[in-house]
């Protein structure tokens, strides 16, 4: 349908995820009938109802307050297929991807500076690695590089438990980006517009003045230089200034 192309109703935010098994955002918005059955069966109260806005009434997992614990109870209850019924394995969920910010992650800071630049001067656990310890898919989704600092792997399903437990405040050192966020075909109107402008400027032919300095055209110009015969006469397009001799 024509609605496939409609991008006005896309609304992604960091650490705000669809329940596990959600189909892509556009189909989800069409199929979700706001029955809130997923909310009711969630044993951890992870799934919350979206407030005022274009997505009002649809389910979200707000990873910062309560993450998804991948019990997969909501998927099989969805009456319209907005959540994939056949999904039963937590490892196959794709709610998003986590990303560590090294500039505020305690482990990364400790490795770089040997201290934590904390104003309260309290010694907080230097190698915290909480995200590694709480991850339900250890070694698939996250690993400890050199047994020292956490690194996200391809298997991350975006459940957000690491975000919930990350000790840094106010910003979390680890964040989950929901699936679909940053995808060009699903991104916002202005992002796509800017992207097309960027693509056009990349593929555009460089200007002639820059072209003259390279390759064949440079050789051609050099061959034209000829010392035999008369020097070419220049006609200045302006009146020649008369040089006076009393400079020295």
């Amino acid at each position, binding site marked *: 349908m024509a609605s496939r192309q409609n991008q006005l109703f896309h609304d992604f935010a960091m650490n705000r995820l669809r329940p596990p098994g959600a189909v892509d955002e556009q189909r989800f918005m069409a199929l979700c*009938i706001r029955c809130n059955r997923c909310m009711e069966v969630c044993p951890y109260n992870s799934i919350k109802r979206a407030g005022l806005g274009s997505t009002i009434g649809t389910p979200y997992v707000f990873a910062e307050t309560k993450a998804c614990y991948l019990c997969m109870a909501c998927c099989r*209850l969805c009456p319209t297929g907005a959540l994939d019924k056949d999904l039963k394995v937590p490892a196959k969920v794709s709610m998003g991807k986590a990303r560590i910010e090294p500039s505020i992650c305690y482990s990364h800071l400790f490795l770089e500076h040997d201290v934590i630049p904390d104003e309260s001067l309290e010694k907080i656990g230097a190698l915290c690695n909480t995200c590694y310890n709480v991850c339900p898919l250890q070694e698939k989704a996250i690993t400890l590089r050199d047994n020292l600092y956490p690194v996200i792997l391809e298997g991350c399903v975006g459940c957000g438990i690491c975000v919930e437990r990350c000790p840094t405040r106010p910003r979390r050192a680890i964040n989950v980006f929901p699936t679909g966020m940053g995808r060009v075909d699903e991104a916002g109107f202005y992002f796509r517009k800017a992207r097309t402008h960027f693509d056009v400027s990349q593929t555009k032919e460089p200007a002639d003045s820059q072209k003259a300095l390279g390759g064949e055209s440079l050789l051609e110009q050099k061959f034209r230089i000829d010392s035999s015969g008369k020097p070419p006469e220049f006609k200045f397009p302006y009146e020649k200034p008369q040089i006076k001799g009393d400079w020295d």
Partner: protein
Amino acid sequence: MYLPYRRTTQFLVFCLMFVVPILNIYEIYVITGTFYAINFGGLGVADPSVILQAIFAAGELSVPLMASVIFPLFLAILLGRFWCGWLCPYLFVSEGIDWLRSKVGLRLLKKTPQSCNGFKGAFKANISRFSFLLAGTALAGAIGIPVLNYINAPAIMSTEAMIIVKERTVSVEFVFVLTLLGIQLVIFPKIWCRAFCPTGSVISLFRTRFTMRVDSKSRNPSVPCCREESCVSVCPMALEPFRECGNLLCVNCGKCIDSCKHGRLEFSGFEHFKKGARN
């Protein structure tokens, strides 16, 4: 006498809205969902208008979508707008509002109940609600979002009940229901069910020869058969049952049947089914 039975079922359904989330808190998942879509054991039941929206918004027909409307449409074909008249929590509250209006509002507004119905006449009301459904469905298809779900009053009520039980708060949509009830109390009585409700519109479309309906036995149905017009004054849909008893607006509540002193109104439709079976 249908009224006590009807009030009982309405009250039970009204309580069900609150009981389901309480059961779910104790991790009993026999009944889950709201009146957008509810699940009894394994039987999935969804509001047909909601599913219609989803079909147009997603642009696809899938098995779970179709399966969930089988039971409500079966009920509609058998018993007409049984959901509206006997189960819908909105009509239950709406009738309470009408009662309140008859006690308090009329004296303040100095109007008779029939004089201030929005969309006078059943035909106008039908046109209004069907065009509302059509426009909403078209909009859902155009923008890819089931828009009529945002204003589905009974479903919003059950959602709010769940939010009240689970989170001890209400959401923004509660204001919508309150506004609607306020409008019904002060300006237009019965406006939502008569002139807008998309669920009722879809349900009333599924009517066959043997669907249950109210039938009039009076000899000349075009004129009122008694002076009191008792059936007209009780109808929650503001119909004139002596002549419009089989109208698509009728919710089969049976109030007019109870009120008719001469017993000229009765439920019918089943006998056509029997005749069809014999032939």
